[in-house]
């Protein structure tokens, strides 16, 4: 590698202006939309105050895309749409067209190219996605693989709108939880304290930094075999894995430790109920690559219990609030254990301090 003769100074242009890339009707009616409806799954019609209409066709992608897929989508956009697309918060792609007659051919083109049309309204949208074994330096599992397996299982629920309300699912490949909260969340859950590789600690870890990361002060500096290392109080350790990123010798991953937990009832919107965190349903599921069938089965049970029992507009957590957690565990067939009782800061406020009971 030759050092560049004259290093180029970056142009600190920041967030690009989107107007040059925005569909002309969106630009024209920017801030002046009036209402919308969903003529069919995967299709939105937005009507502006002046009567202008824009039709959106939404399709699923694999997020981590090869350039060939991207070019394929561009080709479809140029041939059947009007050359403008956007991606959504959940890595779905939207094609905007100005007349209804362009909708069906576009749908056909997408479908035959293998991109499912759907993800609108009360469907199951694409799963929020993290890095996993493909790129992260600390992952317990592979996000893309889990997502692919689950989306295959829920394919019909993506292309239909038959859920009581939107279903927003997330995955995370370690407990840091870059994927965030979801109606259903599929996250790595470590089940054992880290095993310490003492030989490496002294070489590569800044010990005070690691000690500071532990949420329960379970890590102490210690001399092991005459070398400065660390030790973990296994009684205290809550197996969160927070010590691992700053200190890879705190080996948190392993077949007996890296398990998967499924959570429900996280919600971001402020509609009706306030935003909420997801709650534990099942832990200790096997990290069973390449298709995680046990995880898929748990998700399926939850999803269809919701589909069959919730009322319109109830999000997952709101449905459970109404019918009660006892009934949720009954309907889904999962066990309620001592691990479902919160023990973290503020847990007193999660207790039922009332005579409100569900039978």
């Amino acid at each position, binding site marked *: 590698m030759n050092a560049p003769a004259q290093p180029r100074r970056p142009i600190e242009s920041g967030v690009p202006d989107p107007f040059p890339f925005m569909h002309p009707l969106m630009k024209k009616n920017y801030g002046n939309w009036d209402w919308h409806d969903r003529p069919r799954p995967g299709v939105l019609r937005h009507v502006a105050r002046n009567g202008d209409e824009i039709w959106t066709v939404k399709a699923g992608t694999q997020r981590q895309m090869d350039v060939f897929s991207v070019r394929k989508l561009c080709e479809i956009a140029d041939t059947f749409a009007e050359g403008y697309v956007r991606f959504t918060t959940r890595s779905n792609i939207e094609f905007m067209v100005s007349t209804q007659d362009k909708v069906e051919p576009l749908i056909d083109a997408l479908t035959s190219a293998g991109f499912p049309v759907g993800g609108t309204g009360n469907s199951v949208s694409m799963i929020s996605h993290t890095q996993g074994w493909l790129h992260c330096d600390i992952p317990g599992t592979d996000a893309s693989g889990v997502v692919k397996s689950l989306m295959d299982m829920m394919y019909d629920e993506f292309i239909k709108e038959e859920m009581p309300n939107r279903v927003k699912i997330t995955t995370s490949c370690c407990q840091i939880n870059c994927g965030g909260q979801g109606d259903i969340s599929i996250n790595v859950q470590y089940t054992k304290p880290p095993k310490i590789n003492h030989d490496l600690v002294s070489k590569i870890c800044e010990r005070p930094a690691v000690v500071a990361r532990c949420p329960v002060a379970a890590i102490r500096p210690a001399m092991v075999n005459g070398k400065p290392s660390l030790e973990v109080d296994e009684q205290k350790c*809550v197996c969160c894995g927070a010590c691992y990123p700053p200190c890879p010798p705190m080996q948190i991953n392993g077949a007996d430790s890296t*398990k998967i937990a499924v959570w429900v009832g996280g919600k971001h919107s402020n509609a009706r109920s306030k935003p909420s965190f997801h*709650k534990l349903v099942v832990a200790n599921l096997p990290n069973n690559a390449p298709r995680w069938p046990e995880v898929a089965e748990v998700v399926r049970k939850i999803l269809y219990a919701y589909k069959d029992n919730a009322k319109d507009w109830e999000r997952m957590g709101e449905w*459970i609030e109404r019918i009660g957690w006892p009934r949720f565990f009954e309907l889904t067939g999962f066990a*309620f254990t*001592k691990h479902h009782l*919160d023990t973290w800061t503020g847990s007193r406020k999660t207790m*039922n*301090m009332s005579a409100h009971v569900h039978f």
Partner: protein
Amino acid sequence: KHATPLLDELETGPWPSFVTGLKRLRDAEDRPFAPMMNDLLGQLEHSYEERKGFWKGGTVSVFGYGGGVIPRFSEVADQFPASKEFHTLRIQPPAGYHYTTELLRQMCDVWEKHGSGLIAFHGQSGDIMFQGCSTENTQKAFDEFNEMGLDLGGAGPALRTSMSCVGHARCEKSCYDEVKAHRTVINSFLDEMHRPALPYKFKFKFSGCPNDCVNAIHRSDFAVLGTWRDAMKVNQDEVKAYVVAHGRKYTIDSVIAMCPTRALSLNDDDTLDVDNKSCVRCMHCLNVMPKALHPGDDRGVSILLGGKRSLKVGDLMGTMIIPFMKLETDEEFDALVEFARKLIDFFAENALEHERIGECMDRIGLPAFLEAIGVAPDPNMVNHPRTSSYVRTDDFTAEAEKYFERKAREADLTVAGD
């Protein structure tokens, strides 16, 4: 007689005046307590002037008991010598606070003879407080009350006097026999009441339904509230009559939309659609329509543990620990007593000094507490399962197995019991 210009101002206004009452006692010059009440008024006036209290504690008790008397010695006895001792006897009332005039008059007789003539119906914990007794007379007063069939209540680090709502005696919402529960439980642990030896106080309270007319959830360590498991009873004609009387919009806004779990819907023909699986037995709709709606037939109690006021950790409400327990047969009442005994034993053995059971639960965490008292985790105990991933779950599968076994056992029992 001491001048009481400040207290006199509390004799104006329409509400019955305790000052006028105190003066009546002071002025009853033929009675033994008049001088004591004169000095009591003097000291109270002094408090109103200085805006400070002038009592201090001490030790007074009756023979055979360690608690039940609240001793008060004056810090200004030199100025007000006749009320230098002004102890309170806490006496347990009949469960549900029922009195004949005869019983009340007998009490007055005793208290005119040995006490100050001042009685409070009732203290916040449920005692009749006979307030104002000299050390000398304390035993005499107690002996006479005790002969009448009355007993001292609790004080100090002990089981405390309990309360139960009017319930079965006059309330259509009552879901269990409060009198029987109150008496059976408390009378099983009188030793803990009379000879204080617990880490701190321990209170039971009994409400017949979730309206909780004795404030059990906030104010007791062990709250017993009536509830039911099956469907509520609906008289659709009375529902319709209610809608006719109050209007549709009003009915929807004040019944349907006020149900906390959207378990109610008004049908287009003005009958009520109740989703009993979603109902949390909050009582609201039953309260609004007492003629139309009633608790179901499969009645029993919920038990919540750990309510208390603010010392040290801040206020705590009771946490749902037993969502449902039948309470009809003698065996079922025995089971309640046994559960109470388990709790008191746990408390005696595990709480720190001056720690209430709610604080103890918080300190050790709900999972450990349940394990210690042998109760299985139940989703009704929490608003929702954990949101924090900070927990070691390597025994999750084993714990889940326990749950499935328990459920299978319960299902069997239900079948067997049918």
